[in-house]
Every structure is written in C-alpha cells, then in structure tokens.
C-alpha cells in the first residue's frame, strides 16, 4: 500500500495545481463581458445553425470498433514485451502466430474497403 504514496502525492499536486490555476483565472482575470463573447466559439465565424447532436455516419463506429480489437492485441503484447528476453525464440513465434491470425482480419478490412472514407 505504501507504494502508492507517490501516486497519491501526484494526484494531490495535479488537483492542487489545476485548482490554483482555475482560481487565479476566476479571481485575478479581468471580466468584461459583451454579447459577442457569450456566443459559442466556432473558429471565429458565426456558429453553424442546427442541432449539434446530429446523427454520425456509421464510418466512425467502424473505425472505433476496429480500434478496440487492435487495442486488445496491443494489450496482449504488453506482458509479452516485458518477458521478451526470457521467452526467447519461442515467445517470438508465439506472438507471430497471434499477429498472423489477426492479419487475416486486417486483409479482410482492406479488401472490403472498410477504412475508405467517402
């Protein structure tokens, strides 16, 4: 448990620093408000009309989902990378088989054009 004291200190420092900066902005910064400033900011031009919550194209979902799958692959690689030297050639072959099987999925994605952005 005592190993986590640095983490706790880090947490306190981060929260303290952000709190301090926000307090400085609130208490020290000048406040001059006008109607233009209260508008939502959108790259300098007037905000685009309509509802911000439009339905997103399904492409976004496809990319996100493929990210998850490869995220898991990387998660498997983490303990492997730590143990790489002890596992030796055996470990390398093991991971190559793992990656090779997932490569089929990657080829399928490319073949189906799942990452093409139209």
């Amino acid at each position: 448990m005592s190993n986590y004291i640095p983490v706790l200190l880090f947490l306190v420092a981060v929260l303290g620093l952000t709190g301090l900066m926000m307090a400085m902005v609130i208490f020290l910064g000048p406040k001059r408000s006008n109607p233009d400033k209260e508008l939502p900011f959108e790259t300098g031009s007037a905000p685009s009309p309509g509802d911000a919550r439009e339905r997103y194209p399904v492409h976004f979902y496809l990319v996100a989902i493929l990210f998850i799958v490869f995220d898991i692959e990387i998660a498997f690689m983490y303990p492997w990378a730590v143990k790489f030297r002890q596992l030796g050639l055996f470990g390398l072959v093991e991971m190559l088989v793992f990656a090779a099987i997932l490569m089929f999925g990657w080829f399928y994605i490319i073949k189906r054009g799942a990452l093409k952005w139209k």
Partner: protein
Amino acid sequence: MEIILFIITALIALASALMVITRKSPIASVLFLVLTFVCIAVLYVMLGAQFIAAMQIIVYAGAIMVLFLFVLMLLNLRGNQGWENISPARIGLGFAAAGLLLLVAVAWLKTAGSMEVAGLDPEMGTVSAFGDVLFQRFLLPFEIASVLLLGAIIGVVAMIKRKPLAELGEDKEGKVS
C-alpha cells in the same frame, strides 16, 4: 485504513451501478458505468493486481465505454428510450428476481465456510509474473483469443459494411444505407 478505503470504494461502485440501471438517459448510464469500472480498478489495486487494474482502465473504461458513447451518438436516441413506459410490475418482478439471487449468493457465502487466507504474494500482480503464466500455461487460449478477435473483426465489418460480394474489387460507390 484499508477497510475504510474498501467501504468508500464499494459504496461508490454500488451507487453508480444503481444509477446505471435507473437513469433515463443512456449517456448518463454510460458515464456512471465508467465510474463503476474505475472503482473496480481501485479494488483490483487493493487486491494486488496492478496490471489488471491498468487494463481495466485502458480496455474497459477507456475503449469499451468510448465505443458505447460512439454508438449512442451514432443512434442519437431522442425521447424513445421509454423508462416511463416500463410497467411497475416489470420493475417489481425484475428487482425481486435479482433480490432472490442475491439472497442465494449471500446464503452461499455464509455457509461456504471461511477460506484459507494465504498471505499476499507481492510479485503476483506484476506484468512480469503475469507474462510468465500467460505465455506458458495459457499458450493455447492465447492463440485462440486471436481467432476470437479475428471473428469479431469479420463479423463487424460484414454487418456494418453490407456490400454485395459481387461489387468487391471494382470500386463502386459502397452503399452504406
């Protein structure tokens, strides 16, 4: 000290889990579920499973819940979630069933007798010790996991990109209705 930490974390986890199933807005549910997962990660650290705790944050709270948020934005549900339309009988019966199961679980815990509690093995939760077990004893499940992930990739692409196989190769306008 440790027991206080456990009680605080457990109470937050339970409260946010209850919020997940009672909120009307699915977005609120997702955010409370993230809070529950973070609490569970804290418990993992207390149990000496640091690597699993990190994975809990990265995979569950990070990736999987972001995917849920994505889908919610994708569907952009508005006013058709219908918590209001659920009959009280359904709520009553649902909670009664869950309560009965809880009763069984607690009764089992009571009668199971005390577990032989061994001391904490401080090396167990480290990535290095984890890798030892994963890449030797669990070699076959590890390779099979890649087949599972391959299946997931193909399933998702086939379902979302519904393009007739005849169109493959020639790059027509892929119809994503």
